[in-house]
């Protein structure tokens, strides 16, 4: 499989679009769905799988985590979006939740679908924020935006939870307060993870996400 090194994309200025397109084909692996390359994330259905590299160049294959029996949380991420800052710098929402469920076979991954040059995008910037904010989980780089579009990720943050059986269990906001400063009194992701681990129905399983637009 022709997986391009993300760093190659950065340093390759002249090859431009042709290289980027090749990178896209390798980065988004929709083959798990019988060749459907137009897979879409729909709650209650099988979540589209993908392979992306994180800020350290390490590859993450969603299907492998599911095969290992993990529940996967995907968090759309842009460290320069005020609504993301709210849950990292003003309140430790993501760190606290990740820690709470880490021992319950829950894998947490942030995904940045920002195009190079856009706010909060780019490898170095995300490496820096990972260090500054002491983020313990990987930040996956989706600079083509293909995985973001596949999941119809519209905002940062926007949260998805995938059951180890592959079913998309939750799509929406992190909590019920759309303010860039104040936390809500309901954390939807906390609720959903608790329900999934208890074998209960996730309610609500879809909410309106809030935040910045994803900088495709």
């Amino acid at each position, binding site marked *: 499989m022709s997986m391009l090194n993300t760093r190659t994309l950065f340093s390759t200025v002249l090859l431009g679009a042709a290289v980027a397109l090749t990178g896209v084909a390798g980065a988004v692996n929709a083959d798990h769905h019988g060749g459907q390359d137009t897979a879409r994330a729909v709650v209650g259905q099988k979540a589209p799988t993908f392979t992306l590299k994180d800020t350290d160049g390490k590859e993450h294959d969603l299907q492998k985590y599911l095969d290992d029996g993990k529940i996967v949380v995907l968090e759309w991420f842009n460290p*320069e979006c005020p609504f993301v800052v709210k849950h990292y710098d003003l309140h430790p929402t993501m760190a606290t939740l990740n820690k709470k469920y880490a021992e319950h076979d829950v894998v947490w991954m942030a995904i940045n679908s920002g195009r190079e040059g856009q706010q909060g995008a780019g490898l170095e910037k995300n490496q820096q924020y990972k260090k500054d904010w002491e983020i313990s989980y990987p930040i996956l780089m989706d600079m083509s935006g293909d995985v973001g579009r596949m999941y119809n990720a519209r905002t940062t943050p926007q949260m998805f939870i995938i059951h180890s059986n592959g079913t998309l269990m939750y799509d929406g906001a992190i909590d019920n307060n759309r303010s860039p400063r104040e936390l809500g009194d309901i954390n939807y992701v906390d609720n959903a993870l608790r329900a999934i681990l208890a074998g209960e129905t996730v309610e609500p399983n879809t909410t309106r996400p809030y935040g910045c637009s994803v900088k495709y």
Partner: protein
Amino acid sequence: MTGHSTLHAPASTYFRSRRWRAFLAACIAGAISTPTLAQQPQHPDDDEPLIASLITEHSHAVPGETFYIGVHMRLAEDWHTYWDGLNDTGFAATVKLDLPAGWTAGEIQWPAPERYITSGGLGLDHVYHRDTTLIIPIQVPADATVGETVTITADAEWLVCQDACIPGWATLTLETPVRAETATASDDASLFAATRERTPVPLERADDERLSAEMDGRDLVIRARGASKVAFYPSSASAAPEDIMRTGEAQGDRLRLRFQLEPTGEKPVTGIIAIFATDGTPSWYAVTFPHDG
């Protein structure tokens, strides 16, 4: 004249991290030669894209009458703020008032917004690309003491965006005398008048036989004879349209917009109808169709 003062919190105080400050500094590089953030800029610019103040429509408050105040938000070019309706991203301004005992505030009278496709094209917001006054009616109690000067404080919070967004907030105060005689227009009265021209009127008050709106099953059907474009902006309390981005406005004189109405749902279809004349001039009407499930 009613005095008003502004206390503006620079956006940079919000961001404690060095990275954020570096980012903001990069944004404003070149815009100002000596950054004096403690000093309030006279005009909004890319450094301070929004400057808020608290204004009044009239010279003074009169016991037993409605006294209109406004959070006036001046906006730098190419920036936008958010309407309090159904948006995919962003955050509409909030205002928390501290009023004298017995004085009560009504709801913010939001002017009509414009549709705005978010960067990336996956979302739709309703925004203001211009200076905006959020008018709030204040009911002055009948027993308010004539001759007294009262203080009104507003804690305002907002998000202002270009491609990137900056949150901001300010504690705004004004002092106004209470007098028995009829109030006269304040220096800021024209801002209130301009905002009211952009504020939707209830459809039943439109009294225009060319205009109609009705529910046809799950569809809101708007007809506006002679219009060049028709749009609908759903309120945050509204049932959600199936595809507001692609079907929320239509060229021509009619719009059919399908809603996600569930038999057990309780949300009404409510929002603003925007009608554009052939020369592009808009007019706005507020409608609510209670859920009759």
